[in-house]
C-alpha cells in the first residue's frame, strides 16, 4: 500500500460482486473499501473518523456499499440473493467492520437480522416482498427492543390486536437501527394476553403504507459508540396493519426467535473480530513507531507480550466464531448452546484485549485526533456492539439450564468425532436450513470431543487438549451437582461461572480443530499453543507461560502480517 497513490474506488465489476465464491466477493469488497491510510479514500480511516465526529454514517461509504450490492448478501440465494453460508458471510462483513463497524451495522447488518424470521417463518409472498426490498437497496429493520423490558422478550408491551380491517398496533420500540429510513420492519408484538411463550407474533410491516397520523418514527437515540448509526424509535398509536402482516403461525414468534437468534449470535461476533483486528493494528503501529530506552516500544518485553497475547486472543475469537457459524450448517441440533457461547465469549475477549492494548497506547488510546485516533473509536464502538442484540448475561442464562444434561448425557460419552469440515474456515458447506436448528441441544456436544477424545500429533498440543478435558470433567461434576435453582435463569454466580468456563472449553476445542484440520494459519503449532495457553490462563489452570519458541514464532508472524498488510485473523486476508 502506498499512501501517495490516491484511492479512487470504482465500481466492483458486477460479475465479481456476484461471484458464487464468497472469498472472491470478500476480496472484491476489500478492494472497494480501499487503503485505510489514504486521506483521499472516502472509506479511509480519516473519512470514517470525520463521519463519526459528526455522528453520521459516511454517505459516500453507503453509496459504495450500495454499488457493491451488499444487501444481496443478506438474502438467501434461493430468493435471488448471495447468502449461502454463515461463516463466509461473517468474513465478508468483517471487511467492513475492520474499517468502520458503524457502517457495517448502520448500512445493514440489521437488515440481515430482520430477514431471518422472514426466511424462517414467512409465506412465499412475504419472503418475496422482503427480498425485493433488500435487493433493490431498501431496508427491513428488526424491531424487537423495548427499553423497559431489555432482553425479556416475553414481557414486551407492544400489542397487535384484531380489528375490523386487520390488526391494530399499540406501543413502541426503541433502539431500532434505521427505523426512520426503512421501507419495512419486522415487529415483535404481543398477540395474546395469555402468559407464556405462544403469545407473540412477528409482523412484517410496510412502514411507508401506514397512516401518517398513527405512527411516529423520527426519534433518535444518541449513543457513546457507533455514533453514526441511526438508532431510532417507533411509536404506533392504534395503527392499522393488514391481517396478513403476521409471519408464520400466530403465536409462533418466540420459537422463531430462538432459532433465528442462533444464527445472529453465531455470525455477529465473527464480524466484530474485525474491530479487534483494527485495534491491534493501531497498537502495533504505535508500538513500532514510538521509541523508548533506545528501542521501539513493541520490542520491550511487556508490550511485546501484550501484542502477541492480543494476536492469540484474536485467533481464538475467530476460531470460535468460525466454528460456531459452521456448526449452524453441520450440527444444527447443538447450536442453541454453542451460539450462546460464541456471543458470550468473543465480545468479552475482544473487550478485555481492547483494554490491555489501551494501556500500551497510553494517551493515544483516547485522543480523538492524530494517527491512532481509530483506536478510541473502536474502543467506544466495541462495548455497544458487544451488548447489542444479546448481552453476555442473556447468553450465559441460555447455557446454564442445559449444563446438567450435557454433563449427564453428552460430555465424555462415546460418539462421532467432530467432522473435519467444521474446522475449515470458508470451505463450502451444505445449505443452512433454519428449520433444523433445535431449541435445545438435548445434551449433545460434538465440538467438545476435540478436547476430550481427539489425539494430536504434537505432544505439547495434546497435553493442552487434555488440560481442557480435565477442566470439562470438573465442570461436569459441578454441573451435575447444581442445586435446582442454579439450573434456571435465576442461577446464582455458581451457574453463571460454569457457563463461563464451559465457553472457554469450547473455544479451546475450536482452536484445536482449526489447527488440526484447517490450512491456515500455517500448520505450525505456535498459534494454537499460545491460544490455548491464554485460555487456560484465564481459567486459572496454570499452564505456565507459553513456551518461548511458540511466543517468538507468533511474534514473528504478527510482524510479518503487519508488514505485508495481511489481516490478523485466521483468514490472513491481503488488505487493500
Amino acid at each position, binding site marked *: 500500500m502506498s499512501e501517495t497513490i490516491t484511492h479512487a474506488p470504482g465500481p466492483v465489476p458486477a460479475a465479481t460482486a456476484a461471484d458464487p465464491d464468497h472469498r472472491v466477493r470478500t476480496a472484491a469488497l476489500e478492494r472497494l473499501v480501499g487503503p485505510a491510510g489514504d486521506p483521499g479514500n472516502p472509506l479511509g480511516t480519516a473519512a470514517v473518523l470525520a463521519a463519526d465526529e459528526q455522528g453520521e454514517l459516511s454517505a459516500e461509504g453507503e453509496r459504495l456499499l450500495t454499488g457493491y450490492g451488499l444487501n444481496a448478501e443478506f438474502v438467501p440465494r434461493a430468493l435471488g440473493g448471495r447468502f449461502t453460508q454463515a461463516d463466509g458471510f461473517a468474513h465478508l462483513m468483517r471487511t467492513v467492520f475492520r474499517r468502520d463497524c458503524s457502517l457495517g451495522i448502520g448500512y445493514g447488518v440489521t437488515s440481515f437480522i430482520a430477514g431471518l424470521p422472514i426466511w424462517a417463518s414467512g409465506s412465499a409472498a412475504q419472503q418475496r416482498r422482503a427480498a425485493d426490498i433488500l435487493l433493490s437497496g431498501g431496508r427491513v429493520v428488526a424491531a424487537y427492543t423495548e427499553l423497559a423490558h431489555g432482553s425479556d422478550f*416475553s414481557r414486551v408491551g407492544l400489542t397487535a390486536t384484531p380489528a375490523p380491517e386487520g390488526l391494530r398496533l399499540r406501543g413502541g420500540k426503541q433502539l431500532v437501527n434505521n427505523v426512520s429510513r426503512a421501507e419495512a420492519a419486522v415487529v415483535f408484538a404481543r398477540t395474546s394476553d*395469555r*402468559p*407464556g*411463550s*405462544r403469545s407473540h407474533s412477528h409482523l412484517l410491516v410496510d412502514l411507508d403504507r401506514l397512516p401518517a397520523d398513527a405512527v411516529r418514527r423520527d426519534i433518535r437515540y444518541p449513543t457513546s459508540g457507533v455514533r453514526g448509526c441511526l438508532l431510532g424509535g417507533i411509536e404506533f398509536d392504534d395503527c392499522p396493519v393488514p391481517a396478513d402482516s403476521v409471519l408464520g403461525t400466530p403465536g409462533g414468534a*418466540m*420459537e422463531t426467535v*430462538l432459532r433465528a437468534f442462533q444464527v445472529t449470535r453465531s455470525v455477529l461476533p465473527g464480524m466484530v473480530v474485525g474491530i479487534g483486528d483494527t485495534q491491534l493494528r493501531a497498537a502495533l503501529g504505535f508500538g513500532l513507531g514510538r521509541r523508548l530506552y533506545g528501542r521501539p516500544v513493541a520490542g520491550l518485553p511487556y508490550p511485546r507480550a501484550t501484542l502477541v497475547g492480543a494476536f492469540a486472543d484474536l485467533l481464538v475469537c475467530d476460531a470460535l466464531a468460525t466454528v460456531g457459524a459452521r456448526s449452524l450448517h453441520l450440527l444444527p441440533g447443538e447450536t442453541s448452546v454453542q451460539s450462546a457461547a460464541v456471543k458470550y465469549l468473543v465480545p468479552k475477549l475482544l473487550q478485555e484485549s481492547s483494554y490491555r492494548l489501551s494501556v500500551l497506547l497510553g494517551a493515544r488510546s483516547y485522543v480523538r485526533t492524530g494517527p491512532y485516533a481509530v483506536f478510541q473509536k473502536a474502543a467506544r464502538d466495541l462495548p455497544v456492539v458487544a451488548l447489542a442484540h444479546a448481552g453476555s448475561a442473556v447468553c450465559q*442464562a*441460555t447455557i446454564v*439450564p*442445559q449444563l446438567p*444434561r450435557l454433563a449427564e*448425557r453428552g460430555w465424555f460419552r462415546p460418539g462421532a468425532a467432530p467432522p473435519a469440515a467444521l474446522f475449515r474456515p470458508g470451505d463450502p458447506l451444505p445449505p443452512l436450513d433454519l428449520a433444523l436448528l*433445535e*431449541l*435445545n441441544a*438435548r*445434551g449433545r456436544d460434538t465440538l467438545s470431543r476435540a478436547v476430550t477424545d481427539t489425539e494430536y500429533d504434537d505432544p505439547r498440543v495434546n497435553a493442552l487438549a487434555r488440560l481442557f478435558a480435565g477442566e470439562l470433567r470438573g465442570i461436569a461434576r459441578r454441573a451435575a*451437582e447444581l*442445586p*435446582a*435453582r442454579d*439450573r*434456571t*435463569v*435465576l442461577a446464582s454466580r455458581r451457574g453463571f461461572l460454569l457457563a463461563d468456563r464451559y465457553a472457554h472449553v469450547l473455544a479451546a476445542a475450536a482452536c484445536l480443530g482449526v489447527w488440526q484440520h484447517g490450512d491456515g494459519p500455517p500448520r505450525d503449532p505456535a498459534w494454537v499453543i499460545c491460544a490455548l495457553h491464554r485460555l487456560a490462563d484465564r481459567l486459572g489452570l496454570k499452564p505456565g507461560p507459553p513456551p518461548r519458541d511458540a511466543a517468538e514464532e507468533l511474534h514473528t508472524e504478527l510482524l510479518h502480517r503487519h508488514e505485508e498488510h495481511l489481516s490478523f485473523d485466521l483468514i490472513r486476508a491481503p488488505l487493500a
Partner: protein
Amino acid sequence: MSIASTGPTAPDTVPAADIRGWLVERIAFYLECSTEEIAEDAPLVDIGLDSVYSLTLCGDVEDRFGLTVEPTMAWDHPTVGAITAHLTEELARR
C-alpha cells in the same frame, strides 16, 4: 439431589396418575417448593417455571419415559394437567 428416574423405562402404558405425580415432583424440584404447591391447572409460567427454562423439561421426559418430545412441550401444554394429558396420549401412541 433426588431424581425420581432410575433410567428410561418403556412400559406399554403408564397410568396418568404416575405421569402427573412424576411431573409434579420434577417441577417442585426445579422450583424448590413442596409438591403440594404445584396446582394441576396453574400455568407453569405463573408459578415460576421460566419459558426458556421449561425447554429443558424435554430431557427429563426422555430420561424417564424414553420418549422424545418437542422442547416446546410446556409452551403448548402449559399446565401439569395439560402436559399429563399430552404425555399420556404420546405414550399410548407408541
